[in-house]
């Protein structure tokens, strides 16, 4: 089904991804729906194990080839389903139309190549007819854009601090002016003052270049400051989504979202005890029937254990919870691959 001119740069429908080893099947993503509008930034919020990184890798089709499988679903990038694309086609998209920035700047850069060479490599790959001069100019312009002196293009990664390395990585990701930038916890490893610098820079660049962005983070503060839209992920599915206003100012929320907000020590109010969510995220090799959050939910009802809840919609705000929606959604969370 071909889409013509569309408002959304990325649309994911019912994505299911597993990691299959000899011992077990890990259900990492279980029916994910996600939409990113052109020029907008979507914050994908969740804790470790929710499946955020798997989602990002699936968009770029960079899952580990032996164990990672996309079982079903569609990923529409600018109207085309990229799951169906060949590896060759994907190579021309990666780094060019969709770029990714990873969490740890220490391991994202090749220690034996200069920073300039690494940026040039990205540029050259997607612009094979550019002359050496032009490439050099582009490298200099890119470094300038992230606040690094072009004279440093001959330096090696170890000569830069953590914050500067992350800027270089961002520079590389933006060097071909991609339409979509995926940033996977880009500032988690950085000091808070450096994080502020990097976030400001990302915001400016995004505004200037009109890049759409998928910002993956567990930090609600970063989401509030940088994102237009938000999706909250738990155990492989989106349990709440909406604009930033819906999530931060709305009056209805998924119990997990409420729990997340309550877990954060509030800078303004000192309370005696925090109200964490009890328990842990379920084992992805053995997901519960029904709502994935039910085992930990204090509002749990009988119906929650039977089938996954449908989506309650109020304008742009969507919540997947029986507290709000009547009808069950898709059947049991996860696909049973071990059925006899």
């Amino acid at each position, binding site marked *: 089904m071909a889409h013509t001119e569309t408002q959304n740069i990325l649309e994911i429908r019912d994505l299911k991804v597993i990691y299959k080893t000899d011992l077990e099947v890990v259900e990492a993503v279980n029916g994910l729906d996600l939409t990113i509008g052109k020029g907008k930034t979507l914050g994908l919020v969740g804790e*470790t194990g929710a499946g955020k990184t798997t989602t990002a890798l699936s968009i770029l089709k960079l899952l580990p080839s032996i164990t990672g499988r996309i079982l079903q679903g569609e990923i529409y990038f600018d109207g085309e389903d990229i799951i169906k694309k060949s590896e060759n086609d994907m190579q021309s998209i990666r780094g060019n139309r969709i770029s990714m920035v990873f969490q740890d700047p220490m391991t994202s850069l090749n220690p034996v190549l200069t920073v300039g060479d690494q940026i040039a490599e990205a540029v050259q790959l997607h612009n094979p007819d550019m002359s050496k001069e032009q490439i050099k100019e582009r490298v200099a312009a890119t470094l300038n854009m992230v606040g690094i002196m072009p004279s440093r293009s001959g330096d090696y990664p170890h000569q830069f601090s953590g914050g500067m390395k992350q800027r270089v990585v961002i520079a590389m990701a933006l060097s071909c002016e991609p339409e979509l930038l995926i940033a996977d916890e880009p500032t988690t490893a950085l000091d*808070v*003052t450096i*994080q*502020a610098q990097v976030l*400001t820079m990302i915001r400016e660049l995004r505004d200037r270049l009109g890049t759409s962005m998928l910002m993956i983070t567990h930090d609600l503060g970063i989401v*509030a400051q940088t994102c237009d839209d938000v999706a909250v992920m738990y155990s492989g599915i989106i349990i709440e989504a909406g604009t930033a206003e819906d999530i931060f100012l709305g009056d209805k929320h998924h119990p997990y979202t409420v729990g997340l907000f309550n877990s*954060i020590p509030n800078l303004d109010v*000192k309370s005696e005890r925090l109200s*964490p969510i009890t328990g842990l995220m379920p084992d992805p090799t053995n997901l519960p029937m029904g709502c994935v959050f039910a085992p930990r939910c204090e509002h749990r009802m009988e119906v929650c254990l039977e089938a996954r809840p449908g989506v309650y919609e109020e304008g742009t705000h969507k919540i997947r919870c029986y507290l709000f929606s009547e009808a069950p959604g898709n059947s049991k969370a996860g696909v049973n691959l071990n059925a006899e």
Partner: protein
Amino acid sequence: MLNENPNKPLLETIELRKLFKLKGGSNLHAVDGINMKIYAGKTLGVVGESGCGKSTLGRTILKLLEPTSGQILFEGNDITNYSISKMRPVRKDMQIIFQDPYSCIDPRKSVIEIISEYMFIHKLYKSRVETFNKAAGLMDMVGLARRYANSYPHELDGGRRQRIGIARALSLNPKFIVCDEPVSALDVSVQAQNLNLLMDIQDELGLAYMFVTHDLSVVKHISDDIMVMYLGKCVERATSDELFANPQHPYTKALLAAIPKPDIRMRNKEFQLIKGEVSSPVNVKPGCRFASRCDYAVPECSQRDPDFVETSPEHFVACYIVNGR
């Protein structure tokens, strides 16, 4: 536990310094003249970013690193120059909890063995059985189900591994614990669980904590007093409420301003950025170490180290602009 005179600090440092000698002869000023007091049953939060020396400070106080100069007084005794054997009995009173739940416990030992280790070293109980039973009691105290007693670390998640470390630290009935970023490596909801645990234990046992962290919201929650460190020096110290209500040092203000708050009404406010990077703690020049990045700096700032002055009751700041000296 609270048999000490509440006005006398449980632990005190005087001009404590720890320098590392690097190849080529230069010195890394990790901790450079810290004066602090910690009182029984209270928590001192130590905040700062990478390179400020807060972790080194914690380890030096416990004599896991040898101090270069200055004094450490524990319960009035000067332990600065205690040898390893003289420190042994003192170690029962002062313990440490580590940041990384993956490397803080021996992967080849079971949970119960890890928690019992210290008790065996100090031969606290007559028999193996008695020791293990005490360890099981500690598991109860930190909320670790007893069925994990014979499990190995890799079978447990980060939050539980941290609890093993906490149980171990409690095993000798210490009076004081250095908590070195104990929740930084954990997920948000697990962080909250463990923070609550630490606070509950403190109430129940009357422990003093030195809580080292880079996360200002966490430190506010758990601390009575807070010390802000930058490149080995303390730049500001006040009670928790006072520091957040009335931060005075430019670095403290910048630190607070840099935190992205989960409030979208503040969204379009620009982060007030500090320019530049942290300067090197190697071979430091005289003068305030924050001067090169400070928006308010004047030439005098780079000439002499600013004095640590009490600007209001129990609120100390080291800044030339604030104090004039």
